[in-house]
């Protein structure tokens, strides 16, 4: 084995984009900024969408996905390739998302920006402004998307996490057990329970 650093190896191979996640993290651990940028490009879309599905809050999803990458950056030199990198990053992101949900639960009784809304109001999915008139199909589709988002938000966090990882993000059961540190039986049970709850709430659309 040569004494070249991972960074140098990646440069020599002229293939940051073709490097494995593991190689990239090792390079980041040695201060390779380009390798870190590549990791961010590979995963930012997945991570921000995953956190968004957990929180239904665009700004916090952005903030916490940046925090996820910050933690990858600062702990890259301690990274152990026990699991795949994707499992590792989803674990960090899910821990941050769950921590945020628990903090929200604790301060739920204080409503800052909407002090007069009813207790049964639920958070609305972020909608990007669109001035164009909405045809019926689009309206129905929008309504359906909102209903699905609201139904996901209504799930208890333990069901929400496993269900989002499986049915929205498409992770395998094995990956989910690694992300959540739960047994496969528990993961399957939680996904099933979450689906049953969703099925009841979304009966109109399925």
């Amino acid at each position, binding site marked *: 084995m040569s004494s070249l650093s991972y960074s140098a190896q990646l440069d020599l191979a002229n293939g940051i984009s073709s490097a494995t996640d593991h190689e990239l993290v090792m390079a980041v651990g040695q201060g390779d900024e380009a390798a870190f*940028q590549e990791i*961010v490009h590979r995963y*930012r*879309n997945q991570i*921000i*969408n995953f956190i*968004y*599905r957990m929180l239904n809050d*665009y*700004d916090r*999803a*952005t*903030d916490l*996905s*940046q*925090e996820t*990458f*910050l933690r990858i*950056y*600062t702990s890259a030199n301690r990274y152990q390739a026990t699991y795949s990198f994707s499992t590792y990053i989803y674990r960090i992101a899910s821990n941050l998302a769950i921590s945020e949900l628990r903090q929200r639960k604790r301060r739920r*009784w*204080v*409503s*800052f*920006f909407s*002090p*007069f809304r009813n*207790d049964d109001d639920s958070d609305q999915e*972020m909608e990007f402004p669109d001035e164009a008139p909405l045809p019926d199909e689009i309206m129905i589709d929008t309504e*359906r*998307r909102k209903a*699905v*988002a609201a139904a*996901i938000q209504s799930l208890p966090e333990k069901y929400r996490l496993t*269900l989002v990882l499986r*049915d*929205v993000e*498409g992770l395998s*059961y094995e990956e989910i057990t690694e992300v959540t540190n739960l047994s496969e039986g528990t993961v*399957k049970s939680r*996904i*099933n329970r979450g*689906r049953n709850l*969703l*099925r009841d709430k*979304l009966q109109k*659309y*399925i």
Partner: protein
Amino acid sequence: MISKEFPLTPTGCRLVQESLDTADFNVVLQIAILSHCQKCPSCQKYSQELTNLRTLLVSQIRIQVPNDFDIKLRQKIAASKSPKMVSPWWQWVSQPALGATLAAVTIVGVLVGVDYYRQPSSGMPLVASSPNPNVNIIKNPVDNIVKVQPSPISSLSGSDENHPIETVKVITPGYIASPGNRVRRPSRQINSQAPRQISLDEINVEIQYGSSASRTLPLSAVTYGSRPVLNVDNVSTRENKNTSAIPEARIF
């Protein structure tokens, strides 16, 4: 070839539905499941609903990463790299000027303590916050709600250029309203207690630098150029019925 069959019994249905849930089956199992579902309306319905549910979930719109994602990430990384001036306590003890050091620490402690008790408690409601590194607090003329938006804030009293500002929070001891510009609100959610007038000095802004350091300033000390960030002509507080002793917070 191994053949497999699920009988039309509760046990058979349970096994089929479990297999459908995990979608973890080979060709042989798939044929057996299909065969069962063709004869069992209950499992057929289960299978169809599961497929539809998965389709609904997968078809949720994927959000876009904001354009400034990488820039803000870089700023956070830079902030996390700023050195923290922390020395082990035994180095302090070993100094010859121990007495002077302890005296200074005591004085600082007393000052910080006095300052702490002059600030609103941590339970005060938060009415505006932003992760933006550079922020300005503006008042929306339409709904009169104060928001924090990105802006090149040029003069933030006590700011430190070496530590980019990460968060600005406005903390108030209660509900704040300007009498000349009130927003209509349902009276049923407000108790009959008379508004308590609070002064501008009771509104504080907490500014967080990097990931750990923070400072709390009176709102009047936070300026944009030479102007105050926010003018509040008259303020009052009311308690919200739903939260009993905890006042709602909103700035108009």
